[in-house]
């Protein structure tokens, strides 16, 4: 285990801050798409926005026998959609978009719509609750977003909302909303900038991952790559078990132990050749890495690997605690090492990597 802190340069940190503070609830990825295009339009050889809103960027290599390597990171985040204004009050009902634990909602500040209007999800004063009531969670149907008494028609059904959390660096860590998957977006932008010229780098900034991996499917079809890597954030459940006698053996990943390489999740069984490729790169470079505990979860790789006649795929994630809440916490060093690992791995891609049959 390494505790060496690698600080990303200021430019990358500022970019991640901008990306995390932007709002891009699944289906309305406009703000992140805009930032991505500002960053990559001058870097990539071709940039297109497809029918679903994916940003597809190509950085071409030189010479013959280039491997077409697809990288995917999703631009969208979990959030809320305003669905109805109360008949008799300036309060708004909302629905959840993506996998949000409803226990994370009461008492939160939110930003609503393209203008980021501040609002709050309140809760009944504790003084008015009974003990029995407090043993049950507060239902989403009972929650409202309150933007003040003069909101008028500045907000309307269909507007999206996110947590109002602002990006912060806490010592060796970053604390923000939507690190899942703005980490991936920031990493793809960086990898485009430093793309090696012996491969074609195909970067897909995807939409609607949180509601069904929709963007990645059509992006992979369009790119028709030889191989693909989904770059995402994955939960670090590395907290102590409530019972001190019990060891936490299901941690998925742990902070500070480097990029998480996937062998298997609920949606993908990674191509072993790609697992070895990443693992050997890390070992040769002296970079920390961890194998994500096989099990649940899924990434864009879940649909990419089954596109067309099949695309060898793998996922690499930055470990982050408290995904899908108002504030995730991750280590800057894990992010930096993920960039390093993927950067070095791309340098080592050759046609031999995928030659022959898929084998263990």
């Amino acid at each position, binding site marked *: 285990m390494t*505790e060496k802190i690698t600080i990303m340069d200021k430019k990358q940190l500022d970019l991640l801050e901008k990306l995390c503070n932007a709002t891009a609830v699944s289906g309305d990825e406009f703000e992140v798409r805009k930032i991505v295009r500002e960053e990559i339009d001058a870097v990539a050889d071709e940039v297109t926005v497809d029918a679903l809103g994916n940003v597809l960027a190509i950085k071409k290599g030189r010479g013959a026998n280039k491997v077409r390597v697809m990288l995917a990171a999703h631009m969208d985040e979990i959030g809320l959609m305003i669905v109805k204004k109360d008949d008799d009050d300036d309060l708004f009902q909302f629905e959840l978009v993506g996998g949000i*634990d409803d*226990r*994370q909602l*009461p*008492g*939160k*500040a939110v930003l609503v719509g393209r203008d980021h*209007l*501040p*609002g*709050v999800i*309140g*809760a*009944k*004063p*504790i*003084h*008015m*609750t009974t003990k029995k009531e*407090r*043993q*049950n*969670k*507060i239902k989403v149907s*009972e*929650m*409202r977003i*309150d*933007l*003040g*008494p*003069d*909101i*008028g028609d500045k907000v309307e059904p269909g507007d999206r909302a996110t*947590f109002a959390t*602002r990006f*912060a660096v*806490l*010592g*060796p*860590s*970053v*604390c923000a909303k939507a690190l899942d998957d703005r980490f991936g977006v920031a990493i793809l932008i960086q990898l485009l900038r430093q793309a090696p010229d012996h491969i074609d780098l195909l970067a897909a900034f995807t939409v609607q991952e949180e509601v069904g991996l929709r963007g990645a499917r059509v992006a992979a079809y369009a790119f028709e790559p030889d191989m693909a890597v989904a770059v995402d954030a994955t*939960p670090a*459940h590395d*907290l*102590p*078990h*409530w*019972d*001190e006698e019990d060891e*936490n053996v*299901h941690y998925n990943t742990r902070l*500070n132990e480097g990029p998480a390489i996937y062998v298997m999740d609920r949606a993908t069984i990674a191509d072993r050749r790609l697992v070895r490729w990443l693992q050997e790169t890390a070992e040769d470079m002296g970079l920390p890495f961890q194998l994500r505990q096989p099990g649940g979860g899924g990434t864009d790789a879940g649909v990419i690997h089954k596109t067309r006649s099949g695309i060898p795929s793998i996922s690499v994630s930055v470990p982050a605690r*408290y995904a899908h*809440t*108002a*504030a995730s*916490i991750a280590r800057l060093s894990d992010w930096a090492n993920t960039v390093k690992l993927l950067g070095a791995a791309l340098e080592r891609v050759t046609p031999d990597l995928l030659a022959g049959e898929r084998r263990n």
Partner: protein
Amino acid sequence: MTDLLSQLKEMLSASGLSGFESPIREIVRTAWEPLTDELLVSKIGSLHGFKQGSGPDPRHRVLISAHMDAIGMMVTEIRDGLMHVTEIGGLDHRILPGQPVTVHGREDLPGVVVQPPAHLLPDSVGDGPVEMKYLMVDVGLLPREVQKKVRVGDPVSYAQAPLELTGEALAGHTLDNRVSVAATTLCLEALQSRHHTWDVWAVASAQEEETLGGAFTSPFDIRPDIAIVIDVCFAKGPGSNDWRSLPFGKGVGIGYGPNIHPALYDAFEKKAKDLEIPYHKDLMPKMSGTDAMAVQIVAEGIPCAVLGIPLRYMHTPVETVSLKDIRRAGRLMAEFITDLDKDSLNQIQWDA
């Protein structure tokens, strides 16, 4: 004239959990320094601001009690760089997961209250609310740094930044009861250009949320003839619509019930009517839930009035208030105090 919004935001930026009020006390001291003749700090930590009346000696005394302390949490245990906490004041554990907080250790550490993953909690929790004893605070530091910087007993404050909503509404933590301290400041400002014959003692009281410690002790030192207790009251809003809640942003509450001297209720009601300040009768059939519960029974007993500023989502980090009601409360107090004269006390009678 102080800008109310910036004054409030400054107060919200200072911590001051019950029993740990010194940061907020310094802010209030600075605000009241030019408005008072003398400032004292009581043994329990309340701030007393004295503004002398113009009447002949001996003068009557009116006390304004506005508690300045905040609800929050305290570190009970540190495990693997994460902290368990307990509550200071009344917190609904259901609003805690994901809340930004500040841990006041050897230095102030920003962090988040976190709900551990289900498989690390007892099976009985299921997808129900997670009790406070299982929640933790993460400040993003490595365990050895946390061990150096945090100890059991360190206070933990809400850190949600205030949000300006539409219609002069402000949302944030600890508006309970910094809005009443702000209203008291507005009252003191108004009194600068007015004659008042009575002595005024403005108190930013300590420990209301836990022990009422400030409200039991400051009146003993001051021995006022009457007391105005100002606090927040419930505003109508989601989950809060019965008789206990007053309309939001549509006037101050004037408390009515056993903690309140009925003659003072009548006097405030008349004053509000005369000045056309919107108000609502705030019914408190058993108790007021304010400093008045203590002030009323200090020494030989003190006649109390209770004013309320309607607040939504009380005791959450997104309490919401209307600035209009804060101004109304400040003005009502100032007008009431200006009109106190040598006969006023005679009018505060039972069965009159």
